[in-house]
């Protein structure tokens, strides 16, 4: 390419710029008795727990991470030998049930055998230890998260344990904080499974201790959510990896029709009777329908044809788009805050699976530059087109900056400005009611 032909967008900070290291950190944070060793310089600490500090007020992320203090002198002398002492020292201090080690790009590039050193060190601590590669120019947050999921699943004794009949575990839930919103989402997934007559096993990841996660091996079925999609599939049938457990892949249950569709997909996939599925869907609609209807009426009266803007990772964006459409706030702009969850095609497929047709004028941007995304939000707000914004902390302030007083549903990662005091799910029928209430409250 000739000089001068690049656009600023090729180089600009994106709405979701996090790399694998942050994803590994988020995943380890989700496991309360895990510990992450960052074999890095001091700056890479910011890619880990520091990003979670303002996001999760319930659990202090810093307590789950330590770093090996690489300086120039240490680096020149060879740094890998530090991994063992630091691993043992942190184990002695925190007694974790599971540990992972990541390394900075420049250390990886120096050619030392980090994997070998971690393997050696792992033998000296009484807990499982995984080394996860986190090169800074490969992969995004969700790939890092999925890499941990893959390691945990690989340690679950699927072949050794006999599955319990009627028990199902969700695998691939994006658990990013121990606050009442995300905990409530885990609860909603359990409730949805219960509605199908299934007993919920541990959710991966669902905020539970490491040993409990391994009990997923007791489950007869695994409901695989899209955050599992970045896990590399080995050669051979996928189910072999999980000792022949029954697998069903589904999007996120968001909104009324999205959740009903999710129940059908999961229920049918796991051989649940149609009457049971429909009864669960009817019950849920009955509980949450009035709140969504109230929102639809309020939107019609007070937002008069205004639309929603959604910035979220692909599965969540599809779910929120479905919810917004049924609430009378069809999306006009969607920003997909990831690079590994399938992009526009996955968004369209997941939206279709939820039974929602995208508006013909919907614009879908795949991980756009932060400056462009913010400018678009402000323009829509100024033009009076924007009725509600769903977005992370990166986008949440933009309507106010444009002088527009419209409801903002801060969601996803990072979510810094909103912290629920009570259980406030986004998933399931209760999630639909809760989202509707959040918007109504802001109206």
């Amino acid at each position, binding site marked *: 390419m000739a000089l001068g032909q*690049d656009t600023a967008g090729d180089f600009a900070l994106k709405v979701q*710029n996090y790399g694998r290291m942050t994803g590994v950190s988020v995943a380890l944070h989700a496991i309360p008795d895990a510990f992450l060793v960052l074999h890095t*310089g001091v700056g890479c600490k910011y890619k880990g727990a520091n*990003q979670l500090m303002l996001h999760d007020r319930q659990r202090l992320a810093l307590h789950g991470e330590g770093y090996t203090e690489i300086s120039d002198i240490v680096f020149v002398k060879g740094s890998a030998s530090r991994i063992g002492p630091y691993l043992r020292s942190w184990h002695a201090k925190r007694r974790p049930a599971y540990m992972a080690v990541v390394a*900075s790009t420049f250390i990886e590039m120096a050619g030392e055998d980090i994997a070998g050193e971690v393997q050696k060190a792992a033998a000296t601590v009484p807990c499982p230890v995984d080394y996860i590669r986190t090169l800074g120019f490969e992969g995004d947050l969700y790939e890092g998260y999925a890499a941990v999921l893959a390691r945990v699943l690989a340690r679950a004794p699927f072949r050794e344990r006999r599955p319990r009949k009627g028990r199902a575990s969700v695998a691939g839930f994006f658990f990013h904080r121990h606050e009442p919103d995300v905990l409530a989402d885990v609860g909603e997934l359990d409730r949805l499974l219960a509605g199908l007559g299934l007993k919920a096993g541990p959710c991966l990841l669902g905020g539970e201790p490491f040993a409990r996660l391994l009990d997923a091996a007791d489950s007869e079925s695994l409901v695989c959510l899209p955050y599992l999609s970045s896990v590399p599939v080995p050669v051979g049938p996928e189910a072999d990896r999980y000792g022949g457990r029954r697998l069903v892949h589904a999007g996120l249950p968001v909104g009324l029709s999205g959740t009903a569709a999710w129940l059908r997909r999961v229920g049918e996939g796991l051989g649940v009777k149609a009457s049971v599925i429909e009864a669960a869907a009817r019950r849920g609609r009955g509980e949450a329908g009035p709140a969504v209807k109230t929102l639809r009426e309020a939107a019609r009266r007070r937002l008069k044809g205004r639309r929603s803007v959604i910035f979220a990772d692909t599965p969540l964006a599809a779910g929120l788009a479905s919810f917004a459409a049924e609430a009378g706030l069809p999306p006009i702009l969607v920003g997909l805050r990831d690079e590994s969850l399938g992009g526009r095609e996955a968004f369209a497929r997941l939206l279709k699976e939820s039974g929602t047709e995208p508006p013909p004028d919907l614009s879908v941007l795949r991980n756009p530059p932060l400056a462009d995304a913010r400018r678009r939000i402000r323009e829509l707000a100024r033009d009076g087109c924007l009725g509600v914004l769903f977005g992370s902390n990166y986008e949440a302030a933009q309507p106010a900056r444009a002088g527009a007083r419209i409801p903002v549903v801060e969601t996803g990662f990072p979510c810094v400005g909103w912290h629920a005091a009570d259980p406030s799910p986004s998933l399931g029928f209760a999630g639909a009611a809760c989202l509707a209430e959040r918007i109504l409250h802001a109206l």
Partner: protein
Amino acid sequence: MPDTSLTQPCCSLSGAAAMLSAMEGRFAVVVHGERDCLNSFLAFNFPGAERFYCTNLGETQAALGRTSKALERCLEAAAAKDAPQALIVLGTCLTEMIGDDFPAVARRFSRRMGVPVLALRTSGLRSGTQAELLDLLYASLSTLSPRRGRGRSRKEGKGLILVGLPADGAVGGASEIERTLERLGLDLVGSFPHRGDLDAWRRIGGADAAFVVDRSLYPRFAAALESRGMSVAEVPLPIGLGQSLRCLEIIARRFGVEERLKDAAADGARECRREIARFRADFRGLSLAYGLRMCTNYEGDFLAYEGLGDLEFFAELGFRTALLVQGAPESESRRRIGERLRALGRKEPFLVFPDPIVLPGILSKGGFSLAYLGGHAGPEAARAGVPLVATRSLSPFFKGCLDNIARVRELLSGKG
């Protein structure tokens, strides 16, 4: 060299990125390295993150040292998009590791495009002190201003800059120090970092004097200012009555406006004296756990006097103090910290602790009335039942002093 500082070491890229993303103005920042280096600061916390770009170096480029084209393209794209008045290139561990001569690329680009380009050799590899980073950044930014004599202050001979003062929480309106300087007939050209945007940096050549909290933090910056013919004087961190008064007196003396200051400061100082006396009458036998080396945020007021700048305020209120220093617990580390504290003239008892997790035991055992620790140690202080004042959350000058006293009073009364 062992790090003898009482403040946390830092990655200079993280520090520079955090400070530049908090700074307003028409400039762009290019991080020259891998994409993930844009996460070495909390971008979501700062509106200025929109101005950040990354050369997105890949493995092959780094391994072969072919980085200059990527930097040129990135600079061109950023310049075309934002029409910036300045571009700032920040190095990373990757460029440091391969010895990349990106400052030469930056110089060439600057000459070709006629835009100032500052190239800073930042990285986490040469982790230094936060103060070193601050000094490097300020000294570099000061070169954006024309030489002295151009862009003169509005009030001839009365222009000044302030460096390292804490934010006073004034939103929109003038702060207490701005109002006081106005009453003294002085012209505040810029206050760095809290009211120092790019324009202020471009104007500093018009100032006659600089007042710096803890001059030892800024050797290069102070030298750069003096080379412009500016006088540079040290002022204390204006927290509490005594330090606030001394800070204002030094400024007034430099401009010969001491008499005006007597008028301007009289009411505020009197009220502070009265409140301090009331507090000391109400509370006796107080003890304070004063934490050090717990924060990394690159703020001059946090770093001033190695984090000890707020201590005098607590002494004014009658607290006895013990210092809790976060650091390696080995005896060598303890010895070095002890030496450093003695060199700073501190005589308080001190204790070195490795990690906030051990603080509940220390705080309970010490029977402290109040803790002054990094805000993230809130849960530990709560577990020990000791009320917490987060590090450097105290406000400056007289109004701040009154607010601080009221806050400590509330905390001690169990209402905070």
